[in-house]
């Protein structure tokens, strides 16, 4: 088979714009380059403004990770100002954020990832008819049911946070709306309805049973619901070995609360967990259309190279942790948290592991939300006082649906003097670094099968979408 180059784009059913360039040889991807072709310049927009404006502007970086962005901004401002959320304010913020993350996982599974298996290229497979019925784009029964479940779930954000996306409810010292007893039972009612949808459509069984899986054999034996259909497809198409990531996973720990984060923070590599030190983060600019040198985000600047000179090939910077690439996302979060199923999938590290990690997190997030809603105390305070400092610096690290998100803020004379953002897909879809080391998705695509007649290889699409990229966050 001849060697050829492919340009895959517009690459849809990912959030935002993505272009993938492929070198193909002997029926497999030999090398891949991920280009984030949109630059807007949010970090430049923020400079010189009142620091509180970050709470209004940064959610608008991304319409799908909007609450994640607002939470990161709130925590960065909190660190810079010494503000603290009252316990119940942090709980309400976690509920808002958890709802977004849960909804994003559903959007990804039902609308972005699964419709590819309804493609005619898979006609004749034992499961194809069921995939067509369940997941055909804009028509499938499961897609429709989960779309409706997602819209109803967001009523919780309507109630606690006014609207979704782009709420301003999360502030450095708490949340703007104090829920009353009636809000609490409405939230719990919405969650019970959501559990029913998940158990009926997605899992075909009790959530607790999926959350209790602790082995690959257990996952493979899961036969019910859309999760079971995915397992059947994954086994038939060999999705376990497709699209292997670096096997290094990062999580800063999800949902900061006074008693600690709901999931563990750390870096997992070669079977061992070590502490995550944000000081080890460096953004490399060697292959980005960016001027300047590599820097830690607290010192970083964003200056686009208007001439788009080579070797740059993307507006995305290349973050590295202690010099290496890491994968972030639901799987990474669950591995770092030490969930037995995620640990069993950590070395597999491919398409199946990523999707299973997300399904696992759907089940666990629903359970966390139920617990948090039960703990809401309408008699408590949800907002404290805080004052903006004239000078200060802070970082806000949160877990978005797609992984670790960091905001680094510097305040001088009451204005924003520096603002740098490293988003989950900045990690996963980074370009090459100065050493020539490809970013995680670029490396994961190598070896991916490409059929001779394919212009837009379907296996490549599975791998790319398994990361659930959010390209609008990536460059911002």
């Amino acid at each position, binding site marked *: 088979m001849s060697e050829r180059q492919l340009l895959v784009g517009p690459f849809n059913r990912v959030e935002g714009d993505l272009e993938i360039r492929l070198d193909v040889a002997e029926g497999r991807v030999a090398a891949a380059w991920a280009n984030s072709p949109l630059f807007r310049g949010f970090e430049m927009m923020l400079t010189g403004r009142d620091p509180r404006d970050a709470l209004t502007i940064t959610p608008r970086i991304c319409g799908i990770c909007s609450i994640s962005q607002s939470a990161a901004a709130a925590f960065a401002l909190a660190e810079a100002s010494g503000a603290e959320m009252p316990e119940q304010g942090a709980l309400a913020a976690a509920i808002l954020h958890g709802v977004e993350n849960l909804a994003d996982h559903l959007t990804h599974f039902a609308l972005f990832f699964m419709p590819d298996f309804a493609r005619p290229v898979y006609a004749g497979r034992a499961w194809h008819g069921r995939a067509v019925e369940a997941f055909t784009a804009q028509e499938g029964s499961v897609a429709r049911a989960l779309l409706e479940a997602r819209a109803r779930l967001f009523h919780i954000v309507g109630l606690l946070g006014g609207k979704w996306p782009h709420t301003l409810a999360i502030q450095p010292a708490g949340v*703007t709306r104090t829920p009353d007893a009636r809000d609490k039972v409405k939230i719990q009612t919405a969650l019970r309805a959501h559990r029913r949808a998940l158990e009926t459509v997605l899992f075909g069984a009790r959530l607790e049973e999926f959350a209790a899986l602790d082995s690959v054999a257990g996952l493979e034996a899961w036969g019910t619901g859309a999760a079971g259909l995915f397992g059947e497809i994954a086994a038939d198409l060999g999705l376990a070995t497709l699209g292997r990531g670096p096997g290094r996973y990062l999580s800063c720990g999800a949902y900061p609360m006074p008693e600690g984060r709901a999931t563990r923070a750390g870096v997992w590599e070669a079977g061992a967990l070590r502490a995550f030190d944000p000081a080890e983060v460096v953004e490399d600019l060697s292959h980005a259309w960016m001027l300047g040198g590599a820097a830690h985000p607290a010192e970083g600047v964003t200056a686009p190279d208007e001439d788009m000179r080579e070797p740059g090939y993307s507006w995305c910077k290349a973050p590295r942790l202690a010099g290496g690439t890491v994968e972030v996302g639901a799987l990474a979060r669950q591995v770092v948290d030490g969930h037995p199923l995620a640990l069993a999938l950590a070395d597999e590290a491919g398409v199946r592991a990523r999707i299973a990690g997300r399904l696992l997190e759907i089940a666990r997030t629903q359970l966390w939300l139920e617990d948090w809603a039960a703990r809401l105390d309408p008699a408590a305070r949800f907002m404290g006082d805080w004052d903006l400092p004239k000078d200060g610096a802070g970082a806000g690290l949160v877990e978005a649906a797609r992984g670790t998100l960091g905001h680094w803020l510097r305040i001088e004379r009451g204005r924003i003097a520096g603002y740098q953002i490293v988003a989950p897909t900045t990690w996963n879809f980074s370009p090459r670094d100065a050493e020539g080391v490809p970013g995680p998705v670029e490396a994961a695509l190598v070896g991916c099968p490409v059929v001779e007649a394919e212009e*837009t290889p379907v296996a490549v699409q599975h791998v790319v979408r398994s990361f659930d990229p959010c390209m609008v966050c990536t460059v911002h």
Partner: protein
Amino acid sequence: MNVLWLQSAGCGGCTMSLLCAENPNLFDTLGDAGISFLWHPALSVETGAEVRALLDAVERGETVLDVLCVEGSIVTGPKGTGKFHMLSGTGRAMLDWVRALAPMAEHVVAVGSCAAFGGITAAGGNPAGAIGLQYDGAHAGGALDEGFRSRSGLPVINVAGCPTHPAWVTETLLMLAGGLIGAGDLDRYRRPRFYADHLVHHGCPKNEYYEYKASARALSELGCMMEHLGCVGTQAVGDCNIRPWNGEGSCTRGGYPCIACTSPEFEEPGHTYTETPTIAGIPVGLPSDMPKAWFMALASLSKAATPRRIDVNAHSDRIRVAPAPKRET
């Protein structure tokens, strides 16, 4: 009616909001009315080469296009090239694509304030050179010039909002399909009047506080947010408090100010979003259709007449004093 949806330089939030359409869900709301997506970047199965073929067919006129929806601003930088946003896989700037495809469409709809006016992408010195489809901020003429008309004879329809309410988008499309939108159904910034003839103030649950100018001084207090916290709901178009968001929400119901996200240049209010600038203690930007002297006179009278219940609750994060209707006491 077919719809080609392009995501330009924005956050994708208007699509994400659209997916929150309810009663019935988005697929049924549009599909049952015969409205289908020729292509949508978040929803359609087609990727890569399939999409390039589809776009080419529209550009050549082989596929007749009913509605072109554009979400996100159009970036013109660097140096007027539009290369800050190349439509992936095509080697062409989105600026170029929009100019090529808009004349082919029966209707062109700007979804969201970015596509309408430039929006948040044009904030803070506008590093990417973001403009709207047919406006640059409040000024007529954007990626398409001031005189542009789609095949229907209408200018670009601006479904402004950041994000858009799902029903603003679905109802605009349903009305277009039903032949229910003419030039007279658009307001001065060409926003559909069915939602732009209302103010965010209409139906705001803080209206009683507004009547007495019983004002919140910090976010989370129940009082009206106009005097201190930057709320411009009295001057912002939108039916947000008549037809709430995500069940029963709105910005003011969530306890934070309306920032007039349906207005051109809302991204640069000239002050911190959550603070009301004052001149000699008087908030600037009072309701525009009321003489300022009258407003001040009424405000000082009503402030003086504020019942204790309203005064206490305005400065609290929950209702402390319940109403006591005369007939019940």
